[in-house]
């Protein structure tokens, strides 16, 4: 499953970050690296971008970018 498909309010663990170049580096540097816990907080009124929390801060990313992040839901 990728991050854009994750249900709101359900924590998940990042398993892989796809993509390449600048974009991928930026995602990694913002702390979106494997084994990190993320949660989707809400979606924008036009459904895109989405708001997520990780490492006790809030980040917004576009669905396009969220699709690059593979996650696994935690129980």
């Amino acid at each position: 499953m990728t991050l854009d498909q994750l249900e709101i309010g359900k924590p998940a663990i990042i398993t892989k970050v796809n993509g390449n170049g600048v974009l991928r580096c930026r995602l990694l540097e913002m702390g979106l690296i494997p084994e990190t816990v993320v949660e989707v907080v809400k979606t924008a009124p036009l459904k895109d971008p989405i708001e997520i929390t990780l490492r006790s801060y809030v980040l917004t990313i576009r669905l396009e970018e969220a699709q690059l992040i593979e996650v696994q839901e935690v129980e």
Partner: protein
Amino acid sequence: MIYALVGNQNSGKTTLFNALTGSNQHVGNFPGVTVEQKYGIIKGTNYQVVDLPGIYSIRPYSNEEIITRDFILKNNPDAIINIVDAMNIERNLYLTLQLLELRKPTVVALNMMDEVRANNGSINIELLSDLLGVPVVPISAIKEEGISELIRVVEETAKKKRIPKIYDFCKPGPVHRCIHAISHIVEDHADEADVSARYATMQIILDDQNIMDLLKLDENKIEIIKSHVEEMENERGLDCEAAIADMRYKFIENVCNQAVSKPEKSKERTRSVNIDKILTHKYFAIPIFAIIITTIFWITFGPLGTFLADNFEIIIDSGIDIVNAFLTDYGINEIVKSLIVDGILAGVGSVLSFLPLILILFFFLSILEDTGYMARIAFVMDKLLRKIGLSGKSIVPFLIGFGCTVPAVMATRTLPSERDRKLTILLVPFMSCTAKIPIYAFFTDYFFVEHKALIMTGLYFGGIITAVIISTIFNKIAFKGNPIPFVMEMPNYRLPGIKSVILLMWDKAKDFIQRAFTIIVSATILVWFLQSFDLRFNVVEDASLSILGSLGKLMEPIFKPLGFGDYRFVTALVTGLIAKETVVSTLEVLIPTGITTLLTTASALSFLTFTLLYTPCFAAIAAIRREMGSAVKTIGIVIFQIAVAWVVAFTVYQIAGVFI
């Protein structure tokens, strides 16, 4: 001594800069850095501190990051002050680790400690300092707590040239082996090039071509380095980028586990979530945004703004009148008087007339920015703006552009990427500003009495559509490159600091006056000169004989295809560059009999279209020059806008000719 202030966006960097320097701030060029930087003198000392752009990393992806990196490497500041948001310490420390690799005297200013305490969190400062190998000073920039201690520690660190004690952030394993092996290879080269070997190593692992060139590594060594990296990637099971990020975050997690007792979900966060239930609500978000912007607009360009602007103008005008009367009494030469009154003072007046507008707009804009609402605007509007290849925040300069291009161009400063900023600056002038309304009114009175509203609306939409088309084209050609991904932090809502709001207004006003003065005043004098003399430098009574008139006649063929190839219209367009309202007054003077006989409906429409799209005024050019930081690019933009205006007006004229 000179210090560099470095930190993430939203870490309170500007607040700290203000707390350190008060109103003693300047903007200037530093050698080696392409963009002007803000710097100030730290209170009670004679040390300079440079406010570098807010960044998350010094991997050079964006101009902001390049500026920071170049400043630190080339200008060799005596110390780096790294501001870290204690409420968001993990992510903030990522940049810290990169800074420590540079091996320059560094002090961490741990900001927002008041919030950490208020939410029952705590940070063991001594332990954190030991684990990072640099001094850590707890501060609250907004409450101005810990500032003098920070100044003291930074001074000591700089004077004793204390290099960070720790730079090795890897645990034993493949990444560790790789870094050390490569470090060994590049060490001598790095020493020779005078950069930190550790920094060079990390950049080389991440395939930074610049640093490889700088170190003058030969083919053979590059081969060996590449094989080390490949070996590491295979053993670690991650590519080098993920492996390095992972290594840094593992180190940070370890540091935080030991030194930080995390605050519970903070009051500020809970409050933000509640506010956002309304402000970024599924249905309410966009209407609320529209209401907020309309209110700001209404205040700025409505009663309050008009009141201030009018009174301000009365003051300016009476000042000019006094000078005028004095000069007349003195019996000064008419031409000298005309130069002073119609040239110099008119120019000064037009610079000053923008002041109330800029002050009011930036008062509101800094509140939007400081409260954190600007980030919400970006979040809500992003999808819409992305359709034309921009991101959410660009909506703000565009909307201001309908009021006045000058503050709109100045407002692009807050845009997250250089690319967005340039494209927005290019497009903002197509938003029809309020100063053009008198021209529309003048022409519609003559030609479109029945369809006034239709023509007005059409012009506004014409500007927007032109911007959309150009943006779409430019996205496919010129601005293709690497758009910076929209990965934006959502800060908590905060009360804006009065001090920072006032400083920003002051800053913008000063900035505009300083920068705009030369361009606007000299341009006004030039136009005055062209209007007052003929080609033999005799004073002319009849404007058609002036140099401007002759130039207008010379340019007639250019405007013939647009349907208004009469020098008087061309002259009006040139004087319109001083201020758009001047187009009307020039036409009234040059064509006392009225314009109806000189234009057809189609050519009137074409003239209006040209007015809508060509460069707004000298003040706007001055603002563009300021924000682009390049005279050549500014001239390019002006030519581009005139070309667009010509092409669109030509098209309108041809199409209208068929139908009317």
